[in-house]
Structure formats: structure tokens, C-alpha cells
């Protein structure tokens, strides 16, 4: 590992050690991750730099540090590359290794067989590219909404909404393969390249012009990391896409019954990382019977649910409060009966946290698509 090269690559030499990164890091108070110190040691160089620090796997890649750094250093990508050195040495935590190997074998990190990827769609009539159906719009489901029993309700809801709007779309079916966003953030660059290449050829093979994703993580990587598409290619997150239909007056929603007091949680990969804050709020605030509240730290200030950067497959430390639990407690204090979000990782983490904080009677967690689908 050439520290100097690394420091140059991630613009670390500009660092003035102001500490804003560690101060903004949501896990810095409860883990060994001290990003400022890591950057300092990289700048200092020398033989004593140890990349195998415990903290580097704690990073959720939320991006607070990078977005707030006054010297525009790139600490998140720096951590991913540190992870890649550790992976090469074979020292990755066991559960992460399992997830990575699963992607290689089964094209998803959940150790579920590829042939069961469309089980969520049993009984639903959808165009499938792997059955030679044609469409210019791909609804990219993603691994978690495909396999996680709770999250499977999201694509079901979305299909209902799309059909109500008479949208012509298709899904890839069992050929759908992991987008690779988390793999890249975990430092498995080789695996990511392999997935990206395969996915791009598949999209081109089926002459797909537009992709709408469910997960902001998939959205992020298609939009920012995948290259080799032509200029007419478009990626949208489903909240963006539906919001456009809503603005054009095509989305007609009934009044919500029962009344809900909802608080919207901005997912890091949709909100602060890709600047989509308003689309989901427009969808929610136009629904009669829904009162939309905000967290104190909302939009760019939203607190990470701790799902990104591989944390979905990392054992949490017992006895230490998880960020999702903090968020749920705050939602209850605000007086909301529903937390609404637009990311499957946030959904899982927040719902888990509702259970572990014993708030199941007080608050539910729903995806934006689920709420909208109820009311079309």
C-alpha cells in the first residue's frame, strides 16, 4: 500500500485536522471509527500505518464527513480503499465475507437462490425481460426488496401504483443481479466491476432506456458509478418518478383513513448523497388525512439508520444503542404514529428498532410506496 499515492488519490493532503468529520460522524461516539485520526496517520505516512483498524468496518458511508469537509477530502472512498487492502489479505469480518461470497454465487448478498428472485411477484402479471417481453422502462427491484419478506411488500405496492397509472414497464426477472453499490463501498472493487459490466450488458441487451429503482443504493450506483451508457440513458428513484406523475396530475389518491401522523426519514443515499429531498415529501404532503412532521435533523442533517457500507451484514455491538433506535425514540417523541421512508435498508433497521425499543404499539414503519399504494 503506497500511502502517499492513497493520500493524493483521496485529496487527503489538504486536511487541516479540523475534526469536522469525526464530529459529524454518526458512529464516532459509539465505535472505534475516528476518521480524522485515520486521515492524519495516512498523511503522516511512514511504516506504522495500520489499515486493519477495527473502526474501518463501522463506517456506514453516510457521507456526512465528505459533505461537510471544508477542504473537500474524500474520507468515505478512502475508507473503502483501506477495506480493499484488508480484504486482499483475507481479513474481512466473517459475516461480510459471507455476504460477498453470496453475491458471487447467487447474485444477491442474502444467500438466497437466484431462481427465487421473483417469488414476490407470484400471481402478479408483470412484463419480464427474461421472458422476451419488451419495454423501454425497467423497474429494477434490487436484492433486498426481492428477498426480504418485509421489503417484498414494496415492489408489490409499486406494481399496483404503476398499473394504476398505466405505466409500461418490465422487470429483469430472475436474471436480475445485484447492483454492487454495497460491494464497492465494502472495498470489493473487483466484484463491483464484474457486476457492473454484467449489468450494463444486460441493460443494453434488452435495449433499456430508463431505469427506476426501489433502493436509493441501487439508484446511487447506477447514476454515479456505472459508466458506458449513452446520453439518452436515465436513472430515477421511484419517488422522483412518481412525483413527476403527481405534478402532472396523473396520480389520484384517496383520503387516508385512518388519519396518520407521519414523520419522513431521509435515507442517506437518497437525501444527502443524491440531493433528493422534496420528491418524497411532495408525494406525502398531497395526501389528505396525512399530517407530515419533520425530525429535528431532517434532509441534509438526517441521521443515518446504520444500514449502508456493509453494516446490514455486520454484527452490532450488544449493549450499545443503535442509531435506528435513537431515531425511533425521537419519532415517538415528536408524536408520529408512522415513520415513512424510501429505502429498504432504512425500513428494516427502523422496524427492528421499533421492536427492540418496545414501541410496537406506538409506531409503525412504512415505505412511501406502501402508503401511496393504499390510496390509489
Amino acid at each position, binding site marked *: 500500500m503506497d500511502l502517499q499515492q492513497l493520500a493524493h488519490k483521496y485529496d487527503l493532503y489538504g486536511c*487541516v*485536522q*479540523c*475534526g*469536522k*468529520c*469525526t*464530529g*459529524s*460522524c454518526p458512529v*464516532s*461516539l459509539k465505535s472505534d471509527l*475516528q476518521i*480524522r*485520526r485515520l486521515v492524519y496517520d495516512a498523511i503522516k505516512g511512514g511504516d506504522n500505518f495500520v489499515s486493519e483498524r477495527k473502526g474501518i468496518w463501522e463506517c456506514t458511508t453516510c457521507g*456526512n464527513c465528505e*459533505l*461537510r*469537509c*471544508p*477542504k*473537500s477530502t474524500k474520507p468515505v472512498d478512502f475508507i473503502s480503499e483501506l477495506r480493499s487492502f484488508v480484504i486482499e489479505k483475507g481479513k474481512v469480518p466473517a459475516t461480510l465475507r459471507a455476504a460477498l461470497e453470496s453475491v458471487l454465487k447467487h447474485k444477491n448478498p442474502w444467500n438466497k437462490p437466484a431462481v427465487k428472485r421473483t417469488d414476490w411477484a407470484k400471481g402478479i402479471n408483470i412484463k419480464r425481460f427474461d421472458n422476451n417481453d419488451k419495454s423501454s422502462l425497467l423497474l429494477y427491484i434490487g436484492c433486498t426488496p426481492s428477498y426480504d419478506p418485509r421489503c417484498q411488500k414494496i415492489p408489490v405496492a409499486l406494481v399496483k401504483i404503476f398499473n394504476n397509472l398505466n405505466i409500461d414497464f418490465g422487470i429483469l426477472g430472475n436474471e436480475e443481479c445485484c447492483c454492487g453499490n454495497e460491494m464497492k463501498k465494502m472495498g470489493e472493487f473487483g466484484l463491483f466491476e464484474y457486476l457492473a459490466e454484467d449489468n450494463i450488458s444486460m441493460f443494453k441487451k434488452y435495449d433499456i432506456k430508463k431505469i427506476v429503482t426501489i433502493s436509493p443504493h441501487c439508484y446511487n450506483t447506477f447514476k454515479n458509478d456505472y459508466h458506458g451508457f449513452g446520453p439518452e440513458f436515465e436513472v430515477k428513484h421511484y419517488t422522483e418518478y412518481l412525483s413527476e406523475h403527481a405534478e402532472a396530475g396523473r396520480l389520484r389518491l384517496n383520503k387516508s383513513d385512518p388519519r396518520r401522523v407521519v414523520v419522513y426519514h431521509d435515507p442517506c443515499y437518497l437525501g444527502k448523497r443524491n440531493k433528493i429531498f422534496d420528491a418524497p415529501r411532495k408525494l406525502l404532503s398531497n395526501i389528505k388525512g396525512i399530517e407530515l412532521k419533520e425530525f*429535528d*435533523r431532517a*434532509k*441534509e*442533517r438526517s441521521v443515518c439508520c446504520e444500514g449502508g457500507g456493509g453494516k446490514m451484514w455486520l454484527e452490532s455491538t450488544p449493549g450499545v444503542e443503535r442509531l435506528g433506535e435513537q431515531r425511533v425514540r*425521537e419519532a415517538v*417523541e415528536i408524536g408520529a404514529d408512522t415513520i415513512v421512508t424510501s429505502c429498504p435498508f432504512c425500513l428494516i433497521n427502523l422496524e427492528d428498532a421499533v421492536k427492540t425499543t418496545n414501541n410496537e404499539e406506538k409506531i409503525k414503519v412504512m415505505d412511501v410506496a406502501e402508503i401511496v399504494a393504499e390510496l390509489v
Partner: protein
Amino acid sequence: MKKIGIYICHCGVNIASTVDVKKVASYAKNLPNVVVSTDYVYMCSEPGQELIKKDIREKGLDMVVVASCSPTMHEPTFRTAVQEAGLNPYCFEMANIREQCSWVHEDREKATEKAIGLIKSAVARVSLSEPLEEKEVPVAQTALVIGGGIAGIQASLDIANAGFKVYLVEKEPSIGGRMAQLDKTFPTLDCSACILTPKMVEAARNKNIELLTYSEVTDVSGYVGNFKVKVKKKPRYIDVEKCTGCGNCASACRLKGRIPDEFNLGLSKRAVPYILFPQAVPLIYTIDPNHCLYIQKGKCGDKLLCKEACTADAINFDQKEEFLELDVGTIIVATGIDPFDAALKPEYGYGKYPEVINGLEFERLSSASGPTGGEIMVNNKKPKKIVFISCVGSRDKQVGNEYCSRVCCMYTAKHAHLVKEKIPDAQVIVCYTDVRAFGKGFEEFYDRVKNEGVIYRRGSVGEVYKKAGQLIVRSEDTLTGEVYEEETDLVVLAVGLVQRNEGVGLAGLLRIPLGPDKFFLEAHPKLRPVDTSMKGIYLAGCAQGPKDIPDSVAQAKGAASSALVLLETGRVKLEPFCAVIDKDRCGGCRICEGVCSYSALKYDPEQKVMTVNEALCEGCGVCSSACPSGAIKMNHFTDKQIQAQIGGLV
């Protein structure tokens, strides 16, 4: 037969270590018309210049080429030298074999070859040079100062006291600027208004200063010594001759206590008729047109309460904008700054939490004439704990302000001191990245403040948020490596200084550039800090870059001094680089008139040809290339010269 002299400079080792100067000199001897070709270690030195002068006198040189550094360094030096020996300075040419050759190449052979090419080119060009005479124009004996803050006031006083008339244009209803908004000044803790107001009054009383307050510059044309400036006087709707500043109108106003007071940054409310602060100069009320019911809606209840209350009969809603046209010889830009908008850093919650304020708002709270009578109050209580956060909007690539705003470390120390003075039991913490206490008395002041019990914790705050209604500051203490979340009552953000919104438009009007930090750009960062690229226009104060009061005053005096050179001598020389129109070729098509950015070309309807105003012409050459008849030649940059230059190089 022309006689050309060539002088190759070693510039010590700057040129000679890369370029074989002796080889170049011996090559150049064989160029056409060259009678002298020699090298010397420092051409710009006294003996170096004497070499040239001696050869002009003894060998009768008609033209001189010096191959040395950039013309921006020494062209004036050598032009003066040849002029002293009796040669026209425009028969002199420089070949830049330093910045364009020895300083950017390493290969000695190739650099020498390039130097030879550059000299051939210069010789070819100078062979076609013609003697030219600089034009002298008179300088109008008046100055314009734009901006009535401390810098503008000081510059105006200096020029006025030297005996020249000054127009001081200020967009607010009163002069005083930012300094009027401050409580105490660092490091002496002088009361800002107390040291400012005497100067304000002096400016108002000075017979040579004409105050044009509540006015704006709307157009500038002309050139050094002869600027034509249009100024718009905005209507106050109050007769300035009659108003006594008694304030009855404000007391009677229907909207009293309803309009956010801009001087107090919205921390208090005022009436529609207002003065900025009690010591305003001039002490004349102004009716705010944006909020006045009568002006906005044509009706204010059943009668105009202000008019009724005014015993001087000064209120006049029929007032209109007035436009003045001023002829001035020189302009000083002293337009100051705005505080950085901390809402652009959402992590601090500015604009969301009333308990998060910026440095200027703190000044108003601390000021005896402010919204709380000088008490530091938050939610109507005195705060027990205050956290100051440094470097907000400065040294920050995320918001596009890479520079340091220079005053914030010191004003934060001052604020911390003021809190300790007013609320002795308060816990005061300054969260800093660095402490820049560079000026006279600054380090000593910082030391004093820390000894008063203010705690400096290193670490730029990550975020300010609320938990169950309690304000919390989350930060890493970088000196201990500990991440902490502290409750606090008040957060004060040390916002940086940025260019005003109007600055960009003004730069366009004056045709002066802005730097990458958006402040007005000085002509040379080291040696010409008050000049701009436009002759006759100078900069003073924070308009040129963030600085404190003593530096603003010093710079204002510097700008005044430069302006006075022009005003006192009363004449200024203009370079003779302008367009020349061949009347026999000109067809009067007027295409050139349309492309001239300086309005220097005018059509003569009697002769049916174009004419050039040599003073306005900047010699840019656009007209020459646009002319379909080839009737326009550029002095000193003729087509033949340029072609010869190119020929010499290839």
C-alpha cells in the same frame, strides 16, 4: 538604414543557467539591421541601462531590443532609459526569454533555440515600429467615493482636506457602514460608534465633501481623469431640507413595531419611517417604500398619520427618483462586505433555531443601542452557557470561500470577553480550528481573554441540533481525540466576510475584475494593493478583501493618496495604443462602431467616415479585425508588425 541594438540579459542565473546567452548574442549580431548585439548580467541595473544609453548616443541606434524578463516587470524601466538617451520609447521592444523561456524549460539546447526565435521575432517587429507620442489628458478636479463606511469616509476626508471636491455616494440612508453596527472593537475595546461618529460628522461638515446618501451609482463611462458617472438618488419621501430628525413620524406610524429592522438584522422591529441608528448622518428620516401602506396600496387607513405628526411638514409622497450626472477625475471603490449567510451550512441550524445567531447579530445584542439594550439575551433570558464556533463560511471549499476572513478569530475573542464581562458566571467555550491573532495587540488580547476563563476547545463543530428542546453541540475535541455532545443555551457562529450582492454588478459597471474570492481584484497582490486594472479607479477597505478597521483606514489613506497624485498633477499620460482610421479607405459602414466596447468610435455625418476618440480607445483591436475595408490600423500593433513577429518565430 536602421540601426538596431540588441541586449541579452543573464538575469544573474535566472536566464543564463538555462539559455546560452553568449550564443544567442552572437547569433543575433547577424540579424538584419543589427549593429550591436551584446550580453550583460543585469540589464535592468544602472550600469546595464547605461550600456544602452551609451550605444544610443555614440552609435546612433534607432531601435533597441532587450531580451530579458517579462515586459510587466521592466518595460517601463527600459522605455524610460531609452527616452532619457533621446530615443522614442515606442522604438523599444522586449523579448521575454525568462518567464516565457528559461523559467519554463529545462533543456538547454532547446531553450537557447527558443530564445533565438523570440529575439528574431522581436527584431522583426521593432524594425516596423514607429515613434509614437503619449497623449496627455486633463484630470477633472473631483473624486467619487463609492461607499460610506469607515474606508469611504477616511478616503473622502483625506482628499477633501487636500482641497479637492469629493462626492461620497452611499446606498443606505446614513453613512457609517458596518462599523456603526459594531459594539466594541478589538483589541482595544473602543466603543465603535464613539470612534466612528466624529469621523461621520467631520465628513458631513467638510465643505469639500458632498454626501449623496440613499443613492446608487447606475452607470460609469469614460476614462481616467474623465469619468462620467450617473447616480440615482432614491426618494426618501421626506424633504431633506425640512426634516429635523425628531422622529414624530415613526412614533405615529400605523405599522410601528411591525417591520423587521435591518440594522439590527431583524432582531427588533421598527416603523415605516426610520433612521438607521440614533447617530445617523444625515439625521433625516426615510420612508421605507417596500412596507409603506400608502406607497404599496395607495391607502393608509383613513389618514396619513406620519404626515399629521410631522411638525416640519417634511413628508412628501410626490418625491421621485433623481438622477445626477457627475464628472469626476478618479473613483475609489469602498463598498465593504456582507456577512456570510450561515443558512448555507445547514449542520449548524442557523435560521432554524433562534438560539443560533451569527457574529454580527451578537454585536447588535451586545450594543447599548441594540434591540436588548446591550444585554445578551436568548429566549428572554441571559444564557448560562455559550458556545462560539469559528470559521463559518471561511476556509471552506464546500461553500466556495477558500479564503480566511481574517477578523473572525479576533472578533470571537472579543465576543467571548464581552460575555464574561456582562455575564460573569457564564460558561464560555470557543470551538476553533486555528486562532489567528496576527495584528498589533492581537496575541496579547487573546491571552487576556483566555485568562478571563474562556475555554478554547480545538475542533470544528460537526453539528448543532436539538434533543427534547435542548440545544446540543456535537464536536470532536481534536486535542484529546474525544467526541462530545454538549448542551448549551446559545451558539454564536463566527461568520466570514463575503462580497456584497451588488458587488458583481458594480464590477461590471466600472469594468474592473473580481478575484476568485469575488472581492474586487487589485492590480498586483504585493506592490499595487489599492490600484485596479482600470487607471484612475482605486480600492479601499473590505471591498478589496476582508480586513479589520486599522487596515481599512490605512488602505483608504493609500487609495486617497493615489487619487491625489492624479488630482494634484491635474494631467495624466495615456499610452498611444489606439486605433487609427484611414479616411480614404473608410466606407462609413459603421460596423466598427457596433463592436467597440468603449464607445470610442463615432460616425462623422459630414465627412461620412468614422472617427476615433483616442482617450476612450483602449487599443483592443476588435474594430480593426471587423473592418471590411481594412481601414483601421492599430498603433504599435499593426498587421505588418504582427505578421513579422510570427515570421520571426516560425
